[in-house]
């Protein structure tokens, strides 16, 4: 942040946000996002918890895009290759995520099919779009208010981990169904790329700095 901005934000100012909310940056302070302690702007590490201090992780935006891209790249093979290899006495079957869900639905398990589709298709794709939208919204004017975008960020952060469910299901089935000749289930290559996709997308969400949402112009409804 430029030095003259720092000086203009003296105590008692209304702050650069132009509202009653004064941010740590307005006061020439840098906040620790881990332990909430504030330090003078040029402090590099938080003496309380040891975290690296950055007033805004603006350079991390590139990291967000990088993690997001690898996350999306890993998600493609995760849908093309089989997740599960099921072998019973008569049939050998490889099933992808979507084929697996369709199969369960055909057997009447609509609830579970829905859980799988939501966790493995809807949530990952929703996350890709949401993170990209949030990152873009920092650079250009968007319709969604700051409050809404912050809520979206919290939802993405909370829900992203749940996509891991399908990987666990594969692990459970592969260890459980090992009944020699009668039936066996083994993990397919998609299990690994899917897990990677979930991990990379989580890293993208974690690299995003929600404070930057609030630096943007205020919305009329707020």
């Amino acid at each position: 942040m430029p030095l003259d901005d720092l000086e203009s934000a003296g105590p008692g100012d209304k702050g650069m946000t132009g509202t009653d909310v004064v941010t740590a940056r307005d006061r020439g302070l840098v906040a620790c996002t881990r332990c909430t302690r504030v330090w003078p702007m040029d402090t590099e590490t938080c003496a309380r918890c040891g975290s690296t201090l950055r007033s805004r992780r603006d350079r991390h935006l590139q990291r967000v895009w990088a993690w997001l891209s690898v996350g999306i790249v890993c998600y493609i093979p995760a849908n093309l290759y089989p997740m599960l290899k099921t072998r019973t006495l008569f049939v050998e079957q490889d099933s992808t995520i979507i084929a697996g869900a369709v199969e369960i639905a055909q057997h009447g398990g609509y609830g579970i099919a829905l859980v799988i589709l939501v966790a493995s298709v809807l949530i990952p794709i929703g996350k890709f779009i949401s993170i990209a939208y949030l990152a873009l919204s920092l650079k250009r004017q968007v319709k969604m208010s700051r409050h809404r975008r912050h809520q979206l960020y919290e939802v993405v952060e909370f829900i992203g981990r749940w996509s891991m469910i399908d990987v666990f299901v594969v692990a459970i089935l592969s260890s459980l169904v090992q009944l020699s000749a009668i039936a066996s289930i083994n993990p397919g290559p998609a299990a690994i790329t899917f897990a990677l996709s979930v991990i990379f997308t989580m890293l993208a969400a974690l690299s995003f700095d929600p404070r930057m949402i609030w630096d943007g112009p205020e919305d009329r409804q707020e």
Partner: protein
Amino acid sequence: MIGPQLNEPVATTAAPEDGPEEWIACPQCDALFTATVPALGERACCTRCQTVLIAPRRGAFLRVIAFAITVMILMIGATFFPFLQVRVAGMRNAASVFDAVLAFVDGPMVALSVAVAALIVLIPVMRAALVVYVLFPLTIGRAPYRGAAWAFRLAEVLRPWSMAEIFVIGCAVALVKISDLAHVDYGPAFWMFGSLVVVIGLQDSSMCRWTIWKALDPETRA
């Protein structure tokens, strides 16, 4: 998930007269407040984004330690007892979490094996152990152990990567997924995992991070 309801806006915008050690910055939106500790059981939330900043609980440290120790004990049982049992045509197999972890051990899937073990067993246990290490000396009125700040920061960094609860739902999905291939029952570890999820949730919700950080800070401890 979405911003918790505002109880009472106990935190007030930072006044210039008190020192920075009394200030608290919202980690989500950078708003600066004077840290005013609310009554026990109440929460001080950020007035802009509703993030909970301070939430003191009576006897919280002791309770958190009790929960953390419970997590470690339950996890031992939950790892080695079977969580699902399967019966097909007179053959039976029972799988423990330990088996599920080993499911990927063959070939290039080892990485996945390690990841599953870390996410559902190692990270939850490690977090519990770190929290005990951090809080134990504080409950008996001693100075924190060496590296306590580092330990607590690690416990917090690991939080999104602790996925025991997702594994429990994964068990339920797996059970339905193979219900027409074989007869499946829940084993004792399933219930242990179920209670583990509850205890981990209690451990995290009864922990006021700000109180702990303040107790670890030599400057504000007193």
